[in-house]
């Protein structure tokens, strides 16, 4: 194309005598534009994480301003305590269960939204609303609907489906707490997958399907051979992000169950929060949080090796 050469500004003298810098002007301009982002990122991510790692090497009792250096003792304790491994397991269960469920439901939603002709706008609005609703509202409405005295789902569950006794708070039961948590969260978060998938689906030119129909393909074959390969890349990315977010999820679990009953829904973030803010042991809580992060980082690396979602995803312009 005629105008595709790189816009190089080497050699120009601006108002500042920049030639004594080891970088050229273009790099400077580029760096300047991302400077605010870098500063914010520093504040929000780099500094806190460094601090957290630093703090995890100390024993920090709640009201005592004196930090006692304990080296890796916090980590040793973290790995020793029962609750840690239990919470790790609970967290994994929550992450995998949620992600899988959200993947299936989210994909199905996207496929339907892509094909539906009548009421498409209304249906899409309903689906998107579920994602845009604040988590607190989702949590509150769920608590209301499962309330053992007045909740509509509670009544449905106990009287119509016999899932639990009329006096048992479903979310407070050991058997139902986790599944219900997964379901409630997925009502909102599955749509995340839907949005990714739908954006990709819309980008598949209809002539691909027309060509397949000419060859005599049926709907399943078209899905398998055209649709799936095209959305594969985004799905992998979405699943990765969803897994990370679900593993790190704090607010919805805390609001609905606070990690209960007992420790049934205590995932690592909940445990860390409890230790640091409720138990008052900041050092230990931080160590836990750092371990969480390492676990995630390793998981992400493994994921990338396995699936390589960074392959170019096709979109038609």
């Amino acid at each position, binding site marked *: 194309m*005629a*105008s595709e050469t790189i816009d190089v500004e*080497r050699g120009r003298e601006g108002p500042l005598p920049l030639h004594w810098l080891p970088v050229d002007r273009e790099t400077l301009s580029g760096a300047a534009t991302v400077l605010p982002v870098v500063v914010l990122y520093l504040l929000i991510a780099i500094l806190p994480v460094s601090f957290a790692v630093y703090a995890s090497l100390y024993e920090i009792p709640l009201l005592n301003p004196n930090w006692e250096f304990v080296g890796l003792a916090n980590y040793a304790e973290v790995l020793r305590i029962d609750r840690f491994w239990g919470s790790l397991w609970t967290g994994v269960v929550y992450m995998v269960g949620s992600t899988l469920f959200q993947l299936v439901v989210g994909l199905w939603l996207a496929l339907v939204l892509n094909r539906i002709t009548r009421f498409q706008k209304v249906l899409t609005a309903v689906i998107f609303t579920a994602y845009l609703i604040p988590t607190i509202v989702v949590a509150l409405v769920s608590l209301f609907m499962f309330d053992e005295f007045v909740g509509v789902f509670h009544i449905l569950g106990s009287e119509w489906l016999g899932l639990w006794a009329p006096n048992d708070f479903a979310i407070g039961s050991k058997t139902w707490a986790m599944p219900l948590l997964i379901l409630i969260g997925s009502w909102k978060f599955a749509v995340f997958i839907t949005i990714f998938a739908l954006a990709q689906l819309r980008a598949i030119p209809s002539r691909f399907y027309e060509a397949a129909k000419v060859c005599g393909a049926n709907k399943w074959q078209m899905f398998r051979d055209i649709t799936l390969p095209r959305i594969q890349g985004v799905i992998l990315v979405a699943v990765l992000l969803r897994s990370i977010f679900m593993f790190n999820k704090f607010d919805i679990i805390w609001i609905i169950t606070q990690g209960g009953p007992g420790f049934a829904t205590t995932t690592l973030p909940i445990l860390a929060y409890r230790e640091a803010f409720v138990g008052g042991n900041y050092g230990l809580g931080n160590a836990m949080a750092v371990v969480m992060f390492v676990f995630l980082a390793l998981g992400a690396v493994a994921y990338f090796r396995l699936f390589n979602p960074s392959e170019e995803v096709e979109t038609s312009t």
Partner: protein
Amino acid sequence: MVDVNIQNLTRVFQDGADEIVAVDGIDLHIDDGEFVTLVGPSGCGKTTTLRCVAGLDIPTDGTIRFGDRDVTDLPVQERDIALLFQDIALYPHMSVRDNIAYGLKIAGVSRDERYRRVEEAAELLQITDQLDKSPADLSGGQQQRVALGRSLVRDPEVFLFDEPMSDLDAKLKRELRPVVQRITEEIGCPTLYVTHDQEEAMTMSDRVAVMNDGRLEQVGPPKRVYDDPQTEFVSGFIGQPNTQFFDGRVAAANGSATLEVGSHDLSLPTEADRLEGYVGREVRVGIRPQYFEVTEDPEEGIPARHVLDEPLGDETHSFFETEFGELVVVTGPDFEGERREYGLVVDAGEAQLFDPDSGVRIA
């Protein structure tokens, strides 16, 4: 009004460890009011040259002057040029009127004065009814007219074109060419027009500059570049259908030269001493398709088997299979080949000889 003086313009790109020489020390002078076309195949460096003249790219070496102003390092905003882009680049969120007026707005011209000048330009370009529309509602040809208007109102010192018609169909191209010529004449400033289409170059320019691989092969009026190409490349690039090339050997006999092409001897009108260094050597021979004659008898000329015809109405392009490969010959509008053997007679006087290594014209 000024003239444009390009001297030793060089542009080298760094691609990791490699160096790519896009423009290799070219010299070009454009007189005030002159229309010069820079033509060449993709990647020859013509666009890079243009962008250096425009100020969108900085040369590695060399100078560019507009009159007595040295603009080599001047930012594009201060060069007072007009530039027409291949992808037109009108602003979709502004009306046609505001698109044309934008440059004047930047310059601080008052609103009334701006719009007055826009009306003037629109009349010249015959787009007065489109002024209130959005660019997306216009056809490609109309959009280019608006782009021309945008350049026209600023009364630039130099007018630059970056393959503005590449995205248009043939009919539109032919409609737009005279418009471009009229406008540039009206403004009267030096014009540098870049294209890969040699037909555009030939029809629009005062002078044609043929570029290849970063260097200028030949600069001259269209007729001269066509009739008298200085290199093999120029001969092959200018003119449709392309010059047909062969390998031949020069032989001399009593002061007159002969050319052995395959199994034929052509007697050359050139004096033998002009071809001195080449007697007994291989040369490249170029003959334009218009200078073959088709005879019934294959023995009379080069034996050729007719393959197909492309009738164009006023002439026909006929394809023949010969010992030298496939040849194209321009025949009369009523010619209808019969897929059999013919003879191709060469007008030896029109044969062009080129050095086999450098491509430079010998005779």
